[in-house]
């Protein structure tokens, strides 16, 4: 049974029915014992009363009322059957049925009654008492005096008799009725308890149903959703707290993902819209060669930018999917940095920028050059795009394993420099540069540098925005 409700109901019901059954059996046993004790006491009283009617007078035995037959006895003394034995002579007298029926002959020590269950004529169950006694002897005063004179006791000592007295067992049918009543009561109580327990457990577990309803009602498009239960039981409160914390985390992740998706959608669709509209305008009517040339040039720039953006996005997707294998080898820093700078040199020159190189000629780095190239070219691209015309770009390596690219982009502050790696953050200056940067490049850089085992930071010094990449130096085991 997998249902908590079912388990609770079954468990509690089993416990209650077991207790009821035990208590019932105990009560039944006590009542049985008490009823049989009462029955035996009455039987014994009859036996004692009859015992006193057996007399011995000068060798003559007088069985008294026992002679009157079972009908009279039954009526007078409430006895159904009897056998009276004289100890040495066998059966002395018996109820008429008793003579034809074998009542067990038994007796305990003198004057001590013994009780037994017996089978009576007609197959009825009965109860019998066996008693061994001395017949009563009536002594005259002279006889008593003679005995006293002879030094004997004056207590009469008649012949020894054994009396077996049986009575139909009227307790057993009563007990059978009682047993049926008890079983009916037990069954009724069990059913009643079951219904009550089911209702009770259902009531007590209602918070679980409410929780289920609330969880079922959560919508993935609505933010700020939390689960709340009025008068939540203490056991559920930690569960609710954990659920709400989980919802917060899920919501934050969804917001991040949504922002990233929006950002990516914006960054992909806007250039495509630009490309489409430039070509549409160009082809909408006959244009001059100059106009076609400008439209083609602009389209080419946008296509190149889209290509750059798509490559960045693909790299990011690969890294996030963990589908990346690094191929590290020793790289001489200065030649590769100069080689990677080449595509940007023309743009920097066209914008009148000054490029300052400060790299130790012997600087080497063990890294994956393909991934490092993505990082460095993103930094170069930002530098060329955002530095105002005539500004200075510095490409430095002031210590082993360290690359610094500084630009004079406007708008970056100490406060915003911490957010530049956020995938959804773009400096307003980035919007006006005309190159329409995606705002995802630095986020990608951060991911790649982390993958390479280093860290990337951004800071502002005077009018320079400095992006510093710190990687593990060749032969070194720590981050320098």
């Amino acid at each position, binding site marked *: 049974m997998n249902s908590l409700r079912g388990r609770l109901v079954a468990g509690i019901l089993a416990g209650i029915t077991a207790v009821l059954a035990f208590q019932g059996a105990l009560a039944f046993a006590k009542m049985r014992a008490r009823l049989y004790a009462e029955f035996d006491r009455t039987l014994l009283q009859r036996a004692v009363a009859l015992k006193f009617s057996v007399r011995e007078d000068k060798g003559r035995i007088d069985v008294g009322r026992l002679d009157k037959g079972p009908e009279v006895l039954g009526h007078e003394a409430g006895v159904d059957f009897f056998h009276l034995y004289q100890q040495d002579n066998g059966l002395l007298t018996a109820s008429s049925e008793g003579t034809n029926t074998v009542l067990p002959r038994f007796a305990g020590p003198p004057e001590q009654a013994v009780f037994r269950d017996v089978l009576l004529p007609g197959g009825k169950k009965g109860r019998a008492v066996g008693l061994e006694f001395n017949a009563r002897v009536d002594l005259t005063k002279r006889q008593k005096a003679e005995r006293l004179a002879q030094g004997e006791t004056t207590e009469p000592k008649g012949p020894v008799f054994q009396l077996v007295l049986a009575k139909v067992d009227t307790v057993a049918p009563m007990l059978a009725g009682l047993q049926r009543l008890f079983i009916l009561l037990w069954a009724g109580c069990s059913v009643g308890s079951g219904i009550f327990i089911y209702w009770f457990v259902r009531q007590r577990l209602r918070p679980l149903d409410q929780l289920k309803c609330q969880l079922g009602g959560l919508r993935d*498009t609505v933010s700020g959703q939390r689960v709340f239960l009025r008068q939540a039981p203490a056991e559920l409160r930690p569960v609710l707290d954990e659920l709400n914390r989980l919802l917060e985390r899920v919501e934050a992740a969804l917001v991040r993902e949504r922002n990233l998706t*929006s950002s990516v*959608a*914006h*960054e*992909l*669709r*806007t*250039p*495509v*819209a*630009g*490309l*489409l*509209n*430039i070509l*549409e*305008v160009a082809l*909408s*009517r006959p244009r001059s060669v100059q106009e076609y040339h400008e439209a083609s040039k*602009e389209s080419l*720039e*946008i296509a190149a930018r889209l290509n750059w953006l798509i490559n960045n996005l693909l790299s990011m997707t690969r890294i996030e999917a963990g589908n990346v294998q690094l191929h590290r080898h020793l790289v001489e820093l200065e030649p590769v940095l100069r080689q990677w700078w080449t595509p940007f040199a023309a743009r920097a020159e066209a914008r009148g920028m000054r490029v300052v190189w400060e790299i130790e000629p012997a600087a080497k780095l063990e890294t994956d050059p393909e991934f490092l190239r993505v990082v460095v070219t993103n930094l170069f691209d930002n530098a060329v795009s955002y530095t105002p015309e005539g500004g200075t770009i510095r490409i430095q390596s002031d210590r082993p394993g360290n690359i610094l690219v500084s630009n004079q982009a406007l708008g970056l502050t100490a406060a915003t420099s911490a957010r530049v790696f956020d995938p959804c953050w773009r400096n*307003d200056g980035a*919007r*006006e540069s*005309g190159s*329409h940067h995606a705002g995802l490049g630095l986020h990608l850089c951060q991911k790649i540098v982390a993958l390479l085992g280093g860290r990337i930071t951004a800071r502002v010094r005077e009018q320079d925005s400095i992006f510093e990449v710190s990687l593990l130096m060749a032969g070194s085991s720590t981050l320098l």
Partner: protein
Amino acid sequence: MKALLIEDYKPLRTSVAKAIHELGWAVDVGVDGEEGQWFMDHHAYDVIILDLMLPKVQGLELLRHLRGKGDGTPVIILTAMDAVEDRTRGLDLGADDYLVKPFFLTELMARLKARVRRSYQQPDPTLRVGDLEIDTNARQVQRNGQVMTLTAREYALLEYLARRQGQVVTRTEIWGHVYESYGESASNVVDVYVGYLRRKLHQPGRPQLLQTRRGHGYILQEPK
């Protein structure tokens, strides 16, 4: 007609502005939210084309600002986000239409024209003033079945006057709806173009449709 375009992405901005201009409309261009807000606050437009992701002031903020001051100028939103909630948020804030990037300029232009037709309550794309017919789609004008050749400026002036036919239109209104805001303001420029237009519309034996209301402005209507 005059539109305000607020878009931060230069290639898109210039191509859309060029297309609107070639439609015969005047167009003011805002490169960011702040500049867009300035144009909104200082000039009247027949339609505003608004990008949502803008530097300095976001597009939705601009929309809220515009509607907040009771300005009902039709607004068409340009958005790169195509989720239902992104699109409906703009419409809920009072935008009249939206286009998801990338879009075709022909579609944007058709929507601009539709918006203007609705604003001036002239559902027919062909405007008629007496025997004068202006086909706003083909940008062709003919009077009494005779096709006229108008310059872009003359056409723009005529279309605006035809949209407001039967009403006296001041020079300032003409200036505000036919010329870019950053141009040199000169009332005599309007007079000169009205003069050109009047001459071109004139046909011997036909009534003069474009009349001067001295001290008030001009009115295009069929004389009673």
